[in-house]
C-alpha cells in the first residue's frame, strides 16, 4: 500500500494507450521564428537585433523578453515576430538581491515569472503578501492523462526543482516547502536528489483532479480553502514545479524565463516532451513530432480541461503545458437520467446536474443556493455523465455569472 494522500471524490481516469503518451526524454527545439504577444507597448523596431533576454515590449503589465536571438521581422497586431539565428546569444544578466525575500519577490516581478501549470497567473502577485504563509506546495502532480512535461522535468532535473522550491519558499517569507508528486519513481528521484535540505516530498493520489490547487491543499494540508477565499487563507501558496525550476534557472543565469517544456502527445507521429522557446508555433512542434493524424483536433492543455486551438495561430507561452492531438468521439446530448454520477465525482461537492438545470433556466438565485461558484471546471461531471450533457460548460458559465454579480455588488 502506497502512502499517498487523497482528496474528496474525483475520478480515476483510464491511462491512455502508451503510444499516445510521451516519455520523459526532453528534446530541444530551435524554431526558425517565434511570435511573442506584446499588447501594451513595443520597445523594438523591425530589423533590430535582439538577444535572449532583451526587453522587447510589455504585455498586460508584464515585461516581454525575447526568447531567441535574431532579428525582429515584423510587428503587427500586438505580436512581435523574431527570426531565430540559432546562435542563442544572451543579453547581459539581470541584477538581483538574493539576501531578502523582498529581493526575491522583486526579481520575480522583474523577470515576469508567471505560473507555468496552465493558468499563467503572475507569480509576483501571488507572492506579494507573504504574511501568514506557512506552507509552499510545489505542484508536480500533473493529473491530466496526456501531459508529462512536469514528469519529464522532475525526472531529468530534480535538483533544479528542489532549488526552485527552496527559493520560492524563501520568497514566500520562509514557508516550509513541499513537493507533491503522484508517481513513486518521482518521489524516489526527488528524495535522492535532496542533499539534506529541509524539504518534504509528498506522494499524492493518482486521481483526477489532484493537480488542482484546492484539491492539492486538501490532500496535503488536510484543510479546505474557504469558499470565496484564496489558498493563502489556509496559509499556503501553490506553485507549479515548472515555475520553481524556471525560477531556479533564472537565479542561476540572471536571464528571464523564456523557454519551457511542452508535451506534444495524442495521435501524432511521435509523442515527445520538447524544450522550446516561448513564441514557438504549435504547428511547428506538431510537425517536429511528425504531424497529427488527419481529422484530429489540437487541444492546448490537457484533454480534460484544455480547449481546441488553431495550431497555426497559437504560440507557446510560459503557461502552455502541452498540445494534444485527439479525435474526440462525437457525442449526442440527451436528457439527464438523474443517475447522480456528477454529484458523486464532483471534487467541489456541488451538484452539477442541478446547476446545469438552473443555469439553462437562468435562475441566478438558485445558482447561488447551489454554490455554483465553487466549481473548478475540472470536467469530472462531463466525463462521467451517461447522457453526455455539457455539464462543465454550464457550471463554468454559472460560476462566471455569479462572479460578475458579486463584482457588480462590490
Amino acid at each position, binding site marked *: 500500500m502506497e502512502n499517498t494522500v487523497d482528496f*474528496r*471524490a474525483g475520478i480515476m*481516469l483510464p491511462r491512455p494507450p502508451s503510444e499516445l503518451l510521451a516519455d520523459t526524454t526532453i528534446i530541444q527545439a530551435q524554431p526558425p521564428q517565434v511570435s511573442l504577444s506584446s499588447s501594451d507597448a513595443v520597445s523594438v523596431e523591425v530589423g533590430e537585433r535582439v538577444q535572449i533576454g532583451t526587453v522587447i515590449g510589455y504585455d498586460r503589465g508584464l515585461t516581454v523578453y525575447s526568447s531567441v536571438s535574431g532579428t525582429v521581422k515584423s510587428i503587427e497586431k500586438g505580436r512581435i515576430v523574431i527570426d531565430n539565428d540559432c546562435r542563442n546569444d544572451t543579453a547581459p544578466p539581470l541584477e538581483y538581491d538574493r539576501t531578502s525575500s523582498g529581493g526575491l519577490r522583486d526579481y520575480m516581478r522583474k523577470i515576469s515569472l508567471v505560473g507555468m501549470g496552465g493558468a499563467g497567473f503572475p507569480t509576483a502577485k501571488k507572492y506579494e503578501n507573504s504574511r501568514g504563509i*506557512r506552507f509552499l506546495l510545489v505542484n508536480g502532480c500533473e493529473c491530466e*492523462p496526456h501531459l508529462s512535461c512536469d514528469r519529464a522535468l522532475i525526472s531529468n532535473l530534480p535538483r533544479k526543482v528542489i532549488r526552485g522550491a527552496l527559493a520560492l519558499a524563501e520568497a514566500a517569507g520562509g514557508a*516550509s516547502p*513541499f513537493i507533491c508528486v503522484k508517481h513513486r519513481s518521482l518521489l524516489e528521484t526527488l528524495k535522492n536528489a535532496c542533499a539534506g535540505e529541509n524539504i518534504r516530498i*509528498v506522494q499524492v493520489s493518482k486521481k483526477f483532479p489532484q493537480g488542482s490547487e*484546492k484539491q492539492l491543499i*486538501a490532500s*496535503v*494540508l*488536510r*484543510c*479546505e*480553502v*474557504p*469558499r*470565496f*477565499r484564496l489558498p493563502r487563507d*489556509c*496559509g499556503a501558496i501553490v506553485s507549479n514545479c515548472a515555475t520553481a525550476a524556471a525560477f531556479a534557472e533564472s537565479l542561476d543565469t540572471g536571464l528571464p524565463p523564456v523557454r519551457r517544456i511542452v508535451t506534444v502527445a495524442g495521435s501524432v507521429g511521435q509523442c515527445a516532451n520538447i524544450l522550446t522557446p516561448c513564441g514557438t508555433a504549435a504547428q511547428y512542434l506538431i510537425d517536429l513530432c511528425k504531424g497529427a493524424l488527419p481529422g484530429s*483536433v489540437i*487541444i492546448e492543455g490537457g*484533454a480534460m*480541461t*484544455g*480547449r481546441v486551438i488553431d495550431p497555426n495561430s497559437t504560440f507557446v507561452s510560459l503557461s502552455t503545458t502541452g498540445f494534444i492531438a*485527439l479525435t*474526440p*468521439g*462525437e*457525442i449526442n*446530448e*440527451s*436528457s*439527464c*437520467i*438523474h*443517475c*447522480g454520477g456528477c454529484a*458523486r465525482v*464532483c471534487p*467541489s*461537492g*456541488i*451538484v452539477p*446536474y442541478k446547476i446545469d438545470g438552473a443555469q439553462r433556466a437562468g435562475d441566478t438565485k438558485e445558482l447561488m443556493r447551489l454554490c455554483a461558484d*465553487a466549481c473548478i471546471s475540472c*470536467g469530472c461531471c*462531463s*466525463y*462521467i*455523465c*451517461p*447522457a*453526455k450533457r*455539457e455539464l*462543465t*460548460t454550464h457550471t463554468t458559465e454559472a460560476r462566471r455569472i455569479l462572479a460578475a454579480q458579486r463584482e457588480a455588488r462590490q
Partner: protein
Amino acid sequence: MKRIPKNVFLRRDTGTGDIMLWVLLALCPSLVSAVWYFGFRALWLSFLSVLVCVVSEALWEIITRRSITITDLSAAVTGLLLSLSLPVTVPVWALVFADVTAIIIGKQIFGGVGQNIFNPALVGRGVLLVGAAADVISFTSPYDGMTTATPLTEGEVSLSALLSGSHGGSMGETSAILLIFGFGLLYCRGIVKLNAPLGMLGTLAFLTLLFGEEKFLTGDAVGAVLGGGALFGAFFMATDYSSTPATNTGRTIFGIGAGALTFVIRRWGGTAEGVCFAILTMNFFSPLIEELTAPKVYGTGGNGYERKYKAVS
C-alpha cells in the same frame, strides 16, 4: 444531433442506452424463470408490454413534438419491469392499460426520462392494483395453472422453492436466485449501488423478525424477503435513477424507508403485498431526501478534512 464536445474531450464510453441495455440484460434471467414456470404466455406478455411502452412513448413524443427517445431503451425497461411484476394471468387489456399509464402518466407528463418523480412501472402496476385488483392479484401456481396465493398469504413454502421460484407470484419475482444473479450483473457493472436494496431488505427482514408475528422475535424474515416482490422491488425498482435520491446516503435512507413501509403495509395494511406502494411513497420523498443529504460544498467545512494548519509529516 451528434457533434464533438465543446470541452472535456475525454468522455466515459457508457451512455444512457448502455445502462438501460444492462438493466434489460439483468432482467433476462428473471424472464427465463418466468417462461420456465409460467409458460410462453409470460414471454409473449413481456414482449407485448415492451412493445406497447415503446410505441406509446414514441407516439407521445410525436404528438408533443419532442425528440424521439425510444433508442435510450428506458421505455423498454419500463415495459419489461411492468410485465414481470404482474402475474401471468393478467388480462391483455389490463397489461396494455398499465403500460400506457406507466409511460404517459408515470413518465412523459413529468417531462420524460429522468424527470419523473415516481417509478413508471410501479405507477402502472399501482393503478392496476387499485383499479382492477381482482384481475391482477389472482396469482398463479406454476404447476397446475390454478389460482393460488403467494407465499406471503399462504406461508409454508420451502426455502428451496423460494430460491428456485417454484411457487406462486408475479412472473418475474419468484426466483430469488436468478433475481440475485441479474442484480449481481448490474452491481458488477457499477450501474447500481447496494445502498437502497440492502437498506430495504435489511429493514424489512429485521422488522419482520421482530414484529412479524404476535409473539416478539418469531417473524419469518426469510419468507418476507424471498416470498413476495421484495427482492424484485429492492433490486430493480428501488435502484431506479429517476425516482430515487442521487446521493449514496439518500439511497440508504430511501431503502430503509421503503423496507419499513413494506413491512407496515404487509403487517397491518389491507393487502398482502406492500412493496409497490412502499416504493411509490418513498419516491414521493426522494427529492426531499436528496436535498437533505446533498454533499458538503468544498470550502464550507465538514468534509472530514481536519481544520487548519495540520500538515502531513
